[in-house]
């Protein structure tokens, strides 16, 4: 892994993946920030991690489960669930159309 320069074209692609709207000026700044990040994380390639396993849980807990029982005291009413939505329709959340009608 070596430090490489990240282009505004790469930034546009990442922005699309992350669903973040960015202006042309932001693209320039982000390309620079990404390039700096490359430099900072570059050191990891030098660490000898032979024989190590990945950290999944820092205190070593595994497979924590609970009984599959519905806790009715924690359930939201429909009204509570919809209370913070900006647009609702007939008791539903309104989402953007994702499929083309034609």
């Amino acid at each position: 892994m070596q430090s490489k320069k990240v282009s505004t074209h790469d930034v546009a692609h990442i922005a699309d993946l992350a669903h973040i709207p960015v202006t042309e000026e932001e693209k320039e700044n982000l390309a620079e920030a990404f390039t700096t990040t490359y430099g900072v994380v570059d050191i990891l390639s030098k660490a000898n991690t032979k024989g190590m396993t990945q950290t999944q849980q820092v205190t070593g807990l595994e497979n924590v489960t609970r009984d599959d029982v519905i806790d009715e005291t924690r359930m939201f009413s429909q009204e509570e669930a919809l209370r913070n939505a900006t647009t609702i329709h007939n008791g539903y959340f309104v989402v953007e159309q994702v499929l083309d009608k034609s």
Partner: protein
Amino acid sequence: MKANELTLTNAIKKLQSKKLSHKELYEDIEEAVKRKNTQLNIYLSVDKQAQQKAEKLQQSVLAGMPFAVKDNFLTVELPTTASSKVLEGFMPPYESTVTKNLMKNGGVVFGKTNLDAWAHGSSTETSDFGPTKNPRNPEYLPGGSSGGSAAAVAADVCLAAIGSETAGSIRQPSSWCGCVGLKPTYGRVSRAGVVAMASSMDSPGPITKCVEDAALVFSCIAGKDRYDATTVDAPIPDVVHTLKDGIKGYRVGICYVDHEKLKGTPAANAVIEAGKLFESLGAIVSYIPLSQQLEKNKILTPDYAIGIYTVVQRGEVSSNLARYDGIRYGADRSKFGAEAKRRIMLGTFALSKYFDENIYEKAQLTRSLYIKNFEQLLTQYDVLVSPSSPGFAQKLGASKNSPMFGELEDMLMEPTSISGLPGINVPSYHDETTNLYLGMNIVSGQWQEEKLLRAAYSFEQATKWNSWK
């Protein structure tokens, strides 16, 4: 002395012995808020019913004391914004476990405090609602991300505060504001109802006026929670009663004072002085050269940890903040501020094919090395001591245009934070010209908060750096 200037422990004592009333206490607090909040920008919202609630809690552990709570803890009765315009005006439908535990023990959530938006930062300058200023000297930053909570304590507009830390967000602002800040072991205090930042590291904890207060608040909020599967079902040590047992025979390791960016600085010198003091209190003190690679594969240096933290934290942020789509609650993604955009995208970038090897996997492998190496090191030492921040508070505006500001600021805490270890900041020096503070970070092994609280208490008692003494 006004009642708002009391420590939590002393105010409870006074109240229960009828030398102080809730009315007097809350009037002093409200007067201080009125005088200071516009200038310092600490509280984003306050509960006007706080005094009324407190009056019913006389007999409880926390006796109706007013708490300042970071605005990334969900509270049913006060809006929760995480200092982001995305969540402006959001009224949570449920309560965080930490605030629930506080209230169960008789604490009152007096107000919600400013933070770096989504807790992304170490300055509180990235808040969408403007920066908080350092009450010790308003030309300076309070640090972050729990900058509002540390400022609330330093400005005496509460008796104690709650913050959250991923790597430094409790201890660094405590250091800059001259307070005590405890980051518990990961999994000791529930994350349920805390706006998620980096879930494998996020740890809620107290910011207080003294070590005794930190121990008390910790004992009220810690414990297994069925709504956070990473909390551990381990006994909570009786930290309040063991505080005063002293540190005779403690094995203290001084680290990071030889780091190239620290050598000879006031922050490093304060820790070296602390080492001498610990020795005089009966501890066995030695220096650990952690700034260099100890031997093959024995890395515990800040630089690898910064790399790991950058990848893991940004990666977890991009995943956790993917849920803000403006459909069920909050505004849409165009309302994210510049820093949140940058972190979400850096995370997406770190998890993408742009790197020639799987950088996330490599980071998690290297993280395992730190965990193992610290575990071994902490069989030889009871506590590790280093500066909390590399220096004093920086001036307003310092974090602008520096994408790695937080990482450099928190570099001394990242190695232990990625390893889940607990740590506490205690004031270790005061500069009379600027009225600013330095802080010292005391770390112990996982689940050993008792040890570090004892060391911190002994230090606090033997020095003059605590401004509430």
